[in-house]
């Protein structure tokens, strides 16, 4: 069966989320190290997670099973939960080993995150701590009244320490006896804190099918792969009843009240455009000419748009990257493809990169590789590794570079580093493809954010550039973007343009009208353009201010960890360095939701929630990350 499961591993499955980091030294009493993480599948729905676990995360023979029933949770039968919990699970927890319990949502979407995970498992963990763990003294001294100094236990933003403590004290004899049984083992290990973590995904097509344990499905992989984790997080956020919940997963700007923001300049443009009652005829396949010329000026600089540039309007940054991938697949494959890429053009992505990049280029028919970019230990750029990988890359490969505000890390090369990268790209005979999703939104100045692109143009590279107007104009849902390709001369530009249209025509015929009219109106009016520059700078300033505020609030909350990277990083996101299990705890205990890679959308941080966020981050990181 393991072999069968292996056959279903998609070739380009993103790496599994990092599991628990090493046990912090010394807490185990220095006698025996705690056991390695254990993986439990919660029956029944959890069996659907099996194919996603085996063998990418855990060998089949290491998977165990438990049964925390949602119905038991719903009935508030806390004793029942403890009586049914698997003995292996309790023993492992008592010994201080990390325990992951996997479950999937029910087919009934309204039920949301399985109650077994947000309610049942935290209670088992609480009870295990109460009877055997660090807080186990309470059990030994029986029901002491002193609640002072009892650490809070957060479930959905509510402190349940007191009611759960009372519940443990009132448990029937059988349940108490069962839990105390593990206490001597815990004691022998130095009474380590109990670490139980729930991992959940949405329901799959196999919902409720017990046969799923014998039939791994590729769909389940997809459900639990990193690419869809964001959706899982948003989904959970939406169902979370906590009034203090914070969504830091969405990649859209929010104002200081946490509300979506329509730029006043864009609103003004929309009022003007609507008042003109223009027609709604088709745009040319290549898009709106006025918009395109302004978009090129914005990216390359007025009067500095390269000769022989082919440009087309696209469905925002995704559409631009996809069209670039389609063009590569059609004209840079075969003999031109790099070695070992199977006749497909090779596109190298930074590690990590925006989760959608790999899928975009793969679906376009390109081979996808990676180059070193981020160094987790320093939470900054690994320039040496990056330059080494670029110099070693097969000649003729395309290298995707984030022009500014690298997503998800927020880590950008400085000017000097960009110079070295430019030289390496030239030396290695690579073709640069810039994805610029945050021009102006990063530093507040569109020219500063385009510096890397302009540098490459000046250095003589034939740049390919994907632009998005989602963030800097706040036009997310209108799908405004552009792809431009430097070809060298007008004839080649016309040829590339014609082929981009040939690719666009059977994909969407012609691009959408409304959003480009707004950008054209804003940038075509000097006063409105100046206002837009102020507004985009305002968004950048608010985000920078929240970075500073978060670091200060973390210090206030008592955190002594080094959070300098929060202010060093750029743009919408902060790559916090928090591990997947820490992220899971933030969601389960504090109702703070971010993507499993620890990426915080800084736009979701406000002056009102930054204190609570810092308190939460400190609570889940203070025992060592």
């Amino acid at each position, binding site marked *: 069966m393991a072999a069968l499961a292996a056959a279903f591993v998609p070739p380009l499955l993103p790496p599994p989320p990092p599991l628990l980091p090493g046990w912090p030294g010394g807490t185990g009493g220095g006698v025996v190290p705690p056991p390695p993480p254990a993986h439990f599948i919660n029956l029944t729905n959890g069996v659907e997670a099996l194919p996603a676990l085996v063998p990418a995360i855990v060998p089949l023979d290491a998977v165990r099973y438990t049964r925390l029933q949602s119905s038991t949770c719903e009935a508030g039968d806390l004793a029942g939960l403890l009586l049914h919990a698997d003995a292996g699970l309790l023993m492992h927890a008592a010994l201080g080993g990390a325990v992951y319990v996997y479950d999937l949502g029910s*087919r009934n979407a309204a039920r949301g995150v399985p109650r077994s995970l947000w309610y049942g498992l935290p209670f088992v963990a609480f009870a295990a701590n109460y009877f055997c763990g660090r807080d186990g003294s309470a059990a030994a001294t029986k029901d002491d009244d002193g609640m002072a100094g009892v650490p809070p236990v957060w479930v959905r933003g509510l402190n349940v320490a007191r009611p759960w403590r009372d519940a443990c004290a009132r448990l029937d004899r059988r349940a108490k006896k069962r839990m105390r049984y593990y206490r001597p083992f815990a004691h022998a290990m130095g009474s380590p804190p109990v670490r139980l973590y729930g991992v959940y995904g949405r329901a799959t097509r196999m919902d409720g099918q017990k046969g799923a344990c014998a039939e791994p499905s590729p769909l389940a992989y997809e459900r639990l792969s990193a690419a869809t984790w964001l959706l899982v997080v948003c989904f959970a956020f939406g169902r979370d009843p906590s009034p203090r919940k914070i969504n830091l997963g969405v990649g859209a700007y929010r104002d200081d009240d946490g509300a979506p923001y329509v730029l006043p300049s864009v609103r003004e443009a929309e009022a003007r455009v609507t008042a003109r009652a223009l*027609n*709604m005829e088709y745009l040319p396949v290549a898009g709106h000419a006025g918009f395109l010329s302004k978009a090129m000026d914005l990216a390359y600089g007025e009067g500095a748009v390269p000769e022989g540039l082919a440009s087309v309007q696209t469905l925002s940054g995704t559409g631009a990257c996809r069209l670039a991938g389609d063009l590569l697949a059609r004209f840079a494959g075969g003999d031109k493809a790099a070695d070992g890429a199977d006749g497909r053009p090779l596109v190298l992505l930074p590690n990590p990169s925006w989760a959608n990049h790999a899928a975009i280029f793969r*679906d376009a028919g390109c081979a996808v590789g990676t180059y070193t970019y981020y160094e987790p230990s320093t939470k900054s750029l690994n320039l040496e590794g990056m330059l080494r990988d670029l110099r070693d890359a097969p000649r003729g490969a395309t290298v995707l570079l984030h022009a500014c505000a690298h997503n998800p890390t927020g880590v950008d090369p400085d000017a000097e580093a960009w110079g070295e990268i430019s030289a390496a790209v030239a030396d290695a005979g690579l073709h640069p493809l810039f994805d610029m999703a945050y021009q102006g939104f990063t530093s507040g100045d569109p020219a500063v954010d385009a510096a890397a692109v302009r540098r490459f143009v000046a250095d*003589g590279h034939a740049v390919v550039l994907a632009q998005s107007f989602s963030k800097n104009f706040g036009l*997310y849902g209108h*799908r405004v973007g552009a792809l431009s390709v430097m070809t060298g001369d007008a004839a080649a530009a016309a*040829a590339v343009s014609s*082929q981009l249209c040939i690719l666009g025509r059977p994909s*969407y015929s012609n691009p959408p009208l409304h959003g480009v009219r707004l950008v054209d109106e804003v940038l075509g009016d000097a006063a409105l353009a100046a206002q837009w520059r102020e507004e985009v700078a305002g968004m950048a300033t608010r985000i920078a201010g929240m970075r500073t505020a978060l670091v200060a609030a973390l210090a206030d909350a008592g955190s002594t960890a080094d959070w300098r990277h929060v202010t060093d990083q750029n743009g919408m996101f902060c790559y916090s360095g928090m591990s997947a299990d820490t992220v899971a705890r933030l969601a389960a205990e504090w109702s703070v939701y971010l993507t499993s890679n620890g990426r915080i959308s800084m736009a979701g941080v406000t002056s009102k929630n930054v204190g609570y966020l810092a308190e939460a981050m400190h609570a889940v990181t203070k025992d060592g990350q």
Partner: protein
Amino acid sequence: MATTAVAPAKATSVFADVPEAPADPILGLNSAFLADEAPNKISLGVGAFRTDEGKPYVLPVVKRVEQQLAADPATNHEYLPIDGLPAFQKLSAELILGKDSKAMKDGRVVTIQALSGTGALRVGITFLGRFLRTSGSPPAVYIPTPTWSNHRNIVPDAGLGAARTYRYLDAVSGGVDLPSMLADLSDAPAGSVIVLHGCAHNPTGADPSPAQWADILAVVQSRRLIPFFDNAYQGFASGDLDADAASVRLFADAGIDMVLSQSFAKNMGLYGQRIGALSVVLAEGTPDVATAAKAVRSQLKAVVRPMYSSPPAHGARIAVGVLGDEANYAEWKKELAGMAGRIGDMRTALKAALDSNGTPGDWSRIVNQIGMFSYTGLSAQQVAHLRNKHHIYMTSNGRISMAGLTTSTVQRVADAMKDAVETVVKQE
């Protein structure tokens, strides 16, 4: 330590050798028309509605909904979900399948918002290519001859190889060649995808009668084919939304697997806003429909996400404003009847003018055909003659966009056609 980036000799683009693509015939036609300086030039090439003054038309109800959206401070520009605006999905499926659709009640319909008809076809065919297998290979996709030229491009670009064709037009009568069509469909391997125009076949304007649709359905069922209805003209063809959806509903009532694309370009005049829908209808006998529908939706989203992430919002909001409001919906139905009525009037007027000026031939096809276009049967040489001598532009296959005709130009067009037919001997 830092190496200075020496400006290298200009790097050569990876795309330096890309050949120029052949010009799109329809777009080429438009540039030639624009370049023509004759004051009395007439374009019969564009596939968009024009008023009797020859002007582009924004439906009054659409204009009003758009103004309300712009004035509403609650309107934001956030991302739509990958599969589009939920309200739009439901209203769009109801429009084509009917409010009392059994398939919808059964939960057998999965609808996502798409980039108009093209986008729906592209996502739908990509999806079918990934999950339909006929003896281990992706299914063959059959399109009619002739058909909208983009059908031929979408199929290979979606990764399913060259499209196959089935015979459709009877060149002599200008109607549907049903026997040939049924013969070709009967030869298609089981599991093949058959692209059908729901109404107002483009470019011929020739539609099967209800009895002929029943015959087509019988072959589709017996050969276990997957119909993919392209619905670009619902309501625009006859002026009646339900009449134009009759073919789709006949097939839906049969309870078979089918796929539908919808466009709101023509019937709401939302051309440039790129608004349409893709629906996958699951067969009535599907066990555990809810699970299958959910899986289908997830896979449609998996196609969309690396293509364009999420669809454009503006057109979807306008469509919801029209479809979801009783008064607006009623007004829209009237406007649709008005547009279809104008086109019907132009058909009658052109036929009458051709008859009265004595143009050789039987022109009844012009009134028998339906929708935006008329397939006149004029040869490429006759089309060239019309362009060169009379400054009247149409595609070389003799297709006239009826919306390009106006009360004031119809006589001149008829006289020019007479001249072309009499001067240029048709070469078979």
